[in-house]
């Protein structure tokens, strides 16, 4: 059974542009929807909070692993460490890796998240349930909003 998530996406932008969008903490925050306190530094903890509507109370916490310019950016984190009251620091983390390759038209980006086999399954179930509830609520909010306007 697969214990990792692998994504591949073609971007019509040069590698240097994609690299900046991934590794400049403000730019990363724009598309990932997180407000990060300071620049990414390999070996250091990155702190902040989620800006995604409805999830603003959640913390962002990751440890930057590798930054090989225009080739590889990686960090470890607790996937969906969503309960602010719970201490996740002793739980295993997953590794997120972004790999960049130049193409004729821009950049090929590979994203891998691995290490799910080490996450206790009660956390996975909880994350899934809360996540699902969150999205259901989101959809309702949108529906209400659209119905009003």
């Amino acid at each position, binding site marked *: 059974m697969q*214990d990792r*998530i692998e*994504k591949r996406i073609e971007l019509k*932008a040069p590698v240097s542009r994609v690299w900046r*969008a991934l590794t400049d903490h403000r730019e990363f925050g724009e*598309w990932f929807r997180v407000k990060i306190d300071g620049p990414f530094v390999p070996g250091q903890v990155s702190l902040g909070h989620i800006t995604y509507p409805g999830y603003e109370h959640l913390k962002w916490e990751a440890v930057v692993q590798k930054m090989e310019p225009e080739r590889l950016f990686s960090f470890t984190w607790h996937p969906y460490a969503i309960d602010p009251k719970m201490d996740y620091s002793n739980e295993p983390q997953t590794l997120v890796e972004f790999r960049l390759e130049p193409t004729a038209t821009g950049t090929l980006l590979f994203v891998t998240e691995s290490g799910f086999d080490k996450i206790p*399954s*009660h956390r996975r*179930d909880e994350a899934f349930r809360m*996540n699902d509830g969150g999205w259901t609520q989101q959809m309702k909010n949108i529906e209400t909003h659209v119905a009003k306007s």
Partner: protein
Amino acid sequence: MSRNRSSAVSRTRARAPVFAALGDETRLTLVVRLSAGQPQSISQLTEGTRLTRQAVTKHLRVLESAGIVHNIRNGRESRFEFNPQPIAEMKEYLESVSAQWDRALSRLKSFVED
């Protein structure tokens, strides 16, 4: 009644790591055999393999603690039955994480291409 009891057991045992239980060739083979349907005894599961009865028993215990198989006892007879739930939950979880990445990457795409 036994159905209620077994679902309570499976909820408790779903806390054990499912991936770790499946991360072994022999256990995967046992799961594939059991997922085909009929509950099987340890002797049946040992048949046609190079494994000892003890080895099969040990692997079944690991699967049982992850809730992937149940032991059904009928008098002196003991058989093992496949429980699809923990694997289905894992799959659902990974699908939800995967969908979140799809959304994040499509935002990244708009962000760098604009």
